[in-house]
C-alpha cells in the first residue's frame, strides 16, 4: 500500500511539473508568438503614464527579456529553494515554497493565496457536504420511488440544476433571497474562527447555489446506478432472505452505486478547492477563484501560476484520497487489489 501511495505521489508530482510548464507556456510563450515584446508585456504593469525608463526597469526586474527556458527554470528554482527579492533599498527573503511576487500589486503570491484559501475551503467543503447528501439522497429516493411525482419533480429540478449556470442561479438567489425578501444576510465573508454563526449564515446561500449545480449531477448518477443495482440478482436474493428494505437499499444497493460517485466527487472537490470562480465572483467572496480571475484579467503571471499550481495540487490530492477510499466503499475493489 505504501508503495502504491508513493507511486501515486510521484506521478502527482510529475503532473504538477507538467501543469506548471503548460501554464507557463500559455502565458509566457504564446504572447511572444503573437508578437508581444518583453517591453509590451512590461507595459501592462507600469500604470497609466509609463515612461520608457519604467518599462525597461520592469523588464529587467521581472526578467521578461530572458530566454523562456531560463525564466521557467528560475521560476522552479524559486519555488523549490526560495529567493531573495529587492524592494527599494530593502532585501526580502521569500522562503520556499516561493511563488514570487505579484507583477501588478507587488504582494507576495503564496501568502495572498493562503489568506484567501479559508474562503475557498469554506465554500467548497460546505457545498460538497450539501451536494453529496442532497444529491445522493434525492437520487436514492428517486430510484426507490421510480415514476412517482417526487421522482419526476426531483429529476426535473436536477435537470434545471445541471442546465442553469451559477451566474444565473446565483444572481437570482441574491436578488430575491437576499435583497428582496431578506431570508439570507448580505454575503460578506466572516472567518469561522471569528464568528461561527455569522460564517454559517453568510456561507449558506453560496453553498446551496454551488451545491444545486453539483447535486443535480449526483442525483441523476445515483438514481441511474441505483436502478441498475436494484435489478441485480443479489438484491432479489437479499429481499428473498427477508432483509428489511432499508438494509437492502443502504447496505446492498447503495454501496456499489457510490463507487462512480466517489470518482466524480474527487474531481469536483479538487476543482472547487482550486477556485469556484463564478460562485466566488457572484457572491463577492474573495477566495482563490476570484483571485485567479482577477490575475487573469490583469495578466499577473506569478499569481496565475500560483493558483493553477494550487488547483492542480488539490485535484491530485483529492484523487489520491478517492483512490484510497475505493476499497472502503466497495469491498470488491479490495478483493481485486
Amino acid at each position, binding site marked *: 500500500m505504501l508503495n502504491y501511495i508513493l507511486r501515486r505521489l510521484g506521478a502527482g508530482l510529475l503532473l504538477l511539473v507538467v501543469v506548471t510548464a503548460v501554464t507557463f507556456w500559455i502565458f509566457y510563450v504564446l504572447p511572444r508568438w503573437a508578437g*508581444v515584446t518583453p*517591453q*509590451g508585456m512590461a*507595459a*501592462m*504593469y*507600469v*500604470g*497609466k*503614464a*509609463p*515612461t520608457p*525608463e*519604467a*518599462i*525597461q*526597469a*520592469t523588464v529587467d*526586474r521581472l526578467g521578461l527579456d530572458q530566454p523562456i527556458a531560463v525564466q521557467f527554470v528560475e521560476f522552479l528554482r524559486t519555488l523549490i529553494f526560495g529567493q531573495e527579492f*529587492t*524592494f*527599494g*533599498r*530593502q532585501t*526580502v527573503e521569500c522562503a520556499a515554497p516561493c511563488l514570487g511576487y505579484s507583477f501588478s*500589486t*507587488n*504582494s507576495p503570491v503564496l501568502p*495572498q493565496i493562503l*489568506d*484567501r484559501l479559508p474562503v475557498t475551503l469554506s465554500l467548497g467543503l460546505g457545498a460538497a457536504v450539501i451536494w453529496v447528501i442532497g444529491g445522493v439522497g434525492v437520487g436514492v429516493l428517486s430510484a426507490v420511488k421510480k415514476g412517482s411525482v417526487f421522482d419526476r419533480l426531483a429529476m426535473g429540478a436536477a435537470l434545471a440544476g445541471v442546465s442553469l449556470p451559477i451566474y444565473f442561479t446565483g*444572481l437570482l438567489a*441574491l*436578488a430575491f433571497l*437576499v*435583497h*428582496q*425578501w*431578506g*431570508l*439570507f*444576510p*448580505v*454575503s*460578506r465573508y466572516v472567518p469561522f474562527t471569528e464568528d461561527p*454563526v*455569522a460564517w*454559517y*449564515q453568510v456561507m*449558506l*446561500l453560496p453553498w446551496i447555489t454551488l451545491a444545486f449545480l453539483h447535486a443535480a449531477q449526483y442525483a441523476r448518477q445515483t438514481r441511474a446506478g441505483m436502478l441498475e443495482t436494484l435489478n441485480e440478482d443479489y438484491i432479489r436474493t437479499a429481499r428473498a432472505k427477508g432483509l428489511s428494505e*432499508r438494509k437492502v437499499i443502504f447496505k446492498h444497493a447503495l454501496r456499489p452505486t457510490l463507487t462512480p460517485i466517489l470518482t466524480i466527487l474527487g474531481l469536483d472537490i479538487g476543482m472547487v478547492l482550486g477556485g469556484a470562480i463564478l460562485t466566488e*465572483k*457572484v457572491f*463577492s467572496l*474573495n477566495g482563490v477563484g476570484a*483571485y485567479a480571475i*482577477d490575475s487573469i484579467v*490583469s*495578466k499577473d503571471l506569478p499569481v496565475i501560476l500560483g493558483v493553477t499550481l494550487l488547483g492542480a495540487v488539490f485535484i491530485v490530492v483529492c484523487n489520491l484520497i478517492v483512490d484510497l477510499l475505493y476499497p472502503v466503499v466497495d469491498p470488491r475493489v479490495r478483493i481485486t487489489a
Partner: protein
Amino acid sequence: MRKRTFGFVALGAAATLLLSACGGSATGGGSESENEFDQGSTQLVNPSDKTGGTLKYAIEADFDSADPGNTYYGWSWNFQRYYARTLLSFTPEPGEAATELMPDLAKAMPEPNDDFTEWTVEIQEGLKYEDGSEIVAEDIKYAIARSNFNGGTLSLGPQYFSAHLDQDDHNVYEGSDPLAGFDSIETPDDYTLVFHLKDSFSEFPNVLTQLQTAPVPIEADKGELYQENVLSSGPYKFDGNYQPGVQLHLERNEHWDPDTDPVRPALPDRVELEIGVAQDEIDQRLVNGDIDVDARGTGVGPAMRSTLLDDEAVQGNLDNPYTGALRYMNIHTPIIEDVACRQAIMYAVDRDSMWRAWGGEPGGDIATNLLPPAIPGSNPESDLYPSEDGKGDLDAAQSKLEACGEEDGFSTTLAVRAENDNEVQTAESVKEALARVNIDVNIESYPTADFFGQYAGSQDFVRENDIGLSLSGWGPDWPSGYGFASKITHGDAIMETGNFNTSELDDPEINGLWDDALLTEDPDERAAIYEQIDTLVMENAAILPVVFDKSLIYRSDELTNVFYQPAFMMYDLMPLGVDRD
C-alpha cells in the same frame, strides 16, 4: 422510521432558514428623503458634525497601489487622503469653491518667483506621523523623489515632478544617500521647501495637491512593499490587517492633530473599505444601507440606474453630476492627414445618435467642444460643426470631402475598447453616420487593458493597421485646461506607445498657447487661453467630442456632509460621516 427521517430533515431545513433569516435583512430605504434630486452636485447635503460610527465603503477593483506615491486612480487619490496629507488640498466646500486650492500640510499657499520657475512653501510645525515622530520638510522632499525618481521601481503614479523639476537623472534606490545630488528641491530648514523647475509652470500648486507630496521618512520606505503599511500622516491609519484585493480597514491615528488640519473633520471612528465586491452587489447594498459609499465614485451601474430613475421615492437620494470626463473620438492626424477630410467627419457624424449610445439624458450632455463644463475656459455653447438636431450636416461634409480630394469618400478603421459597451455602440453610430457620405468605417475591437499600450496608443500599430479613428475618454488630473487637455493635445505629449495624445495632434500654435498658459499667473487669463486652445483643437478636427459624461450616484440619508468634488470627479470623501439614528 421513514416519517422520523423526513421530520428530522424538515426540522433541520426550517432551523437553517430561520437561523439565516435572523442574521440578515434586505430592508433599506425607509421614508422618502427630504433632499432634492442632484442637490449634492452643487450643495452640501445632510450637514452634520456628528462623530463616531463606521463609514463603510466597497469597491469592485483594487487600488493600483495603496502607496500614495505610486497611484493614479481618481478614487484612490481621494480615499488615500485619510492616511496621507498633502502639501496643498482642494477646498472642502461644494460648488465652485471646491476646485480652489488651500494649504494642507503647508502653512500658507506657495510663493512663486517672477517667472514661475521657483516655488517656496513652508509647512506647519509640530505635525506628526502615526508613530509620534515629527514630519519635516525633508520627508516631503524624499516622498516626491521616491515617487518620480526611482529607476522605474514605482511606476504607477503621475510624473509631473519628473517632467517639471530641474533635476538630472536620479534614482533614490541607488547609492547610500538617497537624496545626494537631488538638488531640485531644497530644504533650507525643517519646515521649508524650495522647488526649482526647468520651465515656467504657473499651475504648479495643483501638482502640490497630489498624493506624492505626502511625507515619507527615508527609513520607513520599503519600495514597492511600502503599500503594505503606509506610515500615516492623516487622521486614520491602517489597522494592521490590510489585505490587497480584499479589505483595507482604517482606525483613528491618535497622533493626528485636528487643529492642524483644515481639510479633514474625521467624523467616523473607523473607515472600512471592502474590495472585490461585484458592481451590481455594491449598488444593491448601497440602496439597502449595508454600505455607505461606492468608493469608485462613478455612480451606479446600468441595471440599478434604470431602477432608481423609475422610482419616485428615491429621487431625493440621487445626484447626477458631470463627472468631469469627456468621451470623444480621436481622428488620427498621421492617417487622415488632410484637415478638410477630418472636418468632413466632424460634420457627418450623428451627435444625437452617439449621445443616445451613451445613455441619453442621465448619461451626459452632447459635447461640441473640448473642455468639460466645470473647467474654466470651457464654452459648451461653442459648436464649429453645427447641424439640425445634431443629426449631421451632410452637405458641409461633402464639400469638405471635395476640398480634400476625396469626393467619393474613403475607408478607415475605428478602434474601440471591446469591453466598453457604450463605446461599441458609439462606434456603430459613427459607422452608420459616416456611410452617408461614403466614408466606410471598419470597426476593430481591442482589449481595454492594452488599448493604449499596444493598439490605439501605439504609433507603429496605428500606422500598420491604418487606424484612422479611435474612441477614448479622458478626465482631468486637476480641474484646469492644462490639467485636462495638455496630455491629449500638446505635441510634446506624443509617445511611441501608451500615447494619450492619440490623434497625434502637434500644432505649433496650440503648443505655443500651452507654453503661454504656463507663464500666465492670472487664472482668468489662463482660462481665456484655454478657450483659444479649445477652438483650435476643434478647427484642427483632431478630436471629435461625443459626450460630457454624467454619473448617477445614490446618496444614503445616513451619509452626512455630502457634496460633489469636481477635482476628484466624485464626492469629497474627507468630510463624510454617518448618522444612523
